[in-house]
């Protein structure tokens, strides 16, 4: 096992054992209960999967922030002394792994509420959109984690405003200026998602890439 993976495993274990993992899990279950109170009619599978991915972003961001913030600051220093800059990679890896678990729960709940049988296309599109959602959540969570924003109040507000800005900007049609979560839903409900998925993927990964680069740069002076 590489040191990066060993540290990610340590952090995931600490996250689960500290019960902080329960908070976003409970929020996710509440969200799923609302989303899937009624069954999903045949023909609306891709629309439902896009809705799920878009609405999951703040929950996943909260989970990512929770994982990164579970560890005491001095323990992060100990990890930094052991791994150097790879400590940051390990944190992101652990956070992303935890988000994949939550996204898988959401995807499974969705599949159980479908009236018709899901096609392979629906399944793969769902997995892909939830991966995009996890990437957006990881970025938002990392940028609002304690080393970057030490105040819990400021961090929480920044996380909420970050997601709201995604909604507002993408609702206004500015696909390149944010993660276009509203475009995911709009395209999916208008049968335009699959044909435009490559471009939408690029648009959806652009800001997470910039955000994670910013996080890496900021962490140089914020151990």
């Amino acid at each position, binding site marked *: 096992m590489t040191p990066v993976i060993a540290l990610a*495993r*340590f952090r995931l274990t600490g996250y689960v054992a500290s019960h902080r993992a329960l908070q976003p899990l409970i929020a996710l279950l509440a969200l799923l209960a609302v989303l899937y109170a009624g069954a999903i009619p045949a023909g609306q599978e891709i629309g439902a999967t896009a809705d799920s991915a878009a609405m999951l972003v703040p929950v996943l961001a909260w989970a990512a922030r929770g994982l990164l913030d579970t560890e005491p600051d001095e323990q992060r*220093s*100990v990890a930094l002394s*052991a791994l150097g800059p790879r400590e940051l990679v390990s944190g992101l890896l652990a956070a992303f792994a935890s988000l994949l678990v939550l996204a898988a729960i959401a995807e499974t709940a969705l599949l159980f509420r479908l009236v018709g049988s899901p096609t392979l296309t629906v399944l793969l599109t769902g997995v892909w959109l939830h991966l995009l959602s996890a990437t957006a959540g990881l970025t938002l969570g990392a940028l609002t984690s304690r080393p970057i924003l030490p105040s819990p109040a400021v961090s929480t507000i920044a996380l909420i405003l970050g997601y709201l800005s995604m909604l507002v900007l993408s609702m206004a049609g500015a696909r390149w200026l944010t993660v276009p979560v509203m475009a995911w839903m709009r395209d999916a409900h208008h049968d335009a998602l699959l044909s435009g998925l490559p471009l939408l993927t690029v648009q959806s990964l652009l800001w997470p890439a910039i955000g994670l680069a910013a996080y890496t740069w900021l962490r140089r002076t914020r151990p």
Partner: protein
Amino acid sequence: MRIASLSFRYGRHDPWILSDAGLVLDAGDVVEVTGPNGTGKSTLLRLVAGLLRPVRGSIEERPRVVGYAPERFPSDQPFTVASYLRHMAAVRRVSTESIGRWSERLGMDHLLGQRLPDLSKGSAHKVGLAQALLAEPGLLVLDEPFAGLDAATRAELPRIIGEVGARGGIVVVSDHQGDLRAFPGLRRCEVRDGAVRELEPVEEAGETALTVLEVAVAASRASDLVDRLRAEGCAVNITGHTTGHITGHTTGHTAGRTTARVAGEAAE
């Protein structure tokens, strides 16, 4: 390892903590960092360990394996001592056998099954030392390592530090208690007013005649004076607090004053 023109402050609007500091550390060096509280000892240690980046200047040729024990071990973590050290051994890619070896040397065998949040301050401190020592570091940075330790471990730690130095490791220690004063070949550096100044080495015990002074000082200033005297290489024992009135004699006691016995090199 070379520290050159090192300057550091935490933010653009914050005062400089270190300014144009320089230090060269050779293989096998054991360096004690002294100085009054709040002058930047821990900051210097964190810079040396690579936890902080210099704002200006550079730190070059840092050994690859760094062990760092913080002043306060973060015991608020949901692990037992054994599972925590197993995780740290995996992160360091060292065998779990080293956990047993260091647990024994630091007198913490009996703590392995305990949960970290249940540990006393001294016991938690031992866990912090153990994780720093697991990987045979080429650079060992210990922030106040003697604080809260029991007598047996206080006696063992200088031996451990000596072994790290003997195999070519660099050891940098901040130490308020003066437990390393008798360490042979100890280099001493003082952090004061943003500068790092190398102090004269303490002569080995027994080679220098000592004079014992009795000093009375206002209780509020006692801690600062003790720090300064220790930074100067004096052994200081605080002997008591008195509430008498000043008499004008050197042996007099004054209201709210602390008396201290100071042993220093005899004046010619």
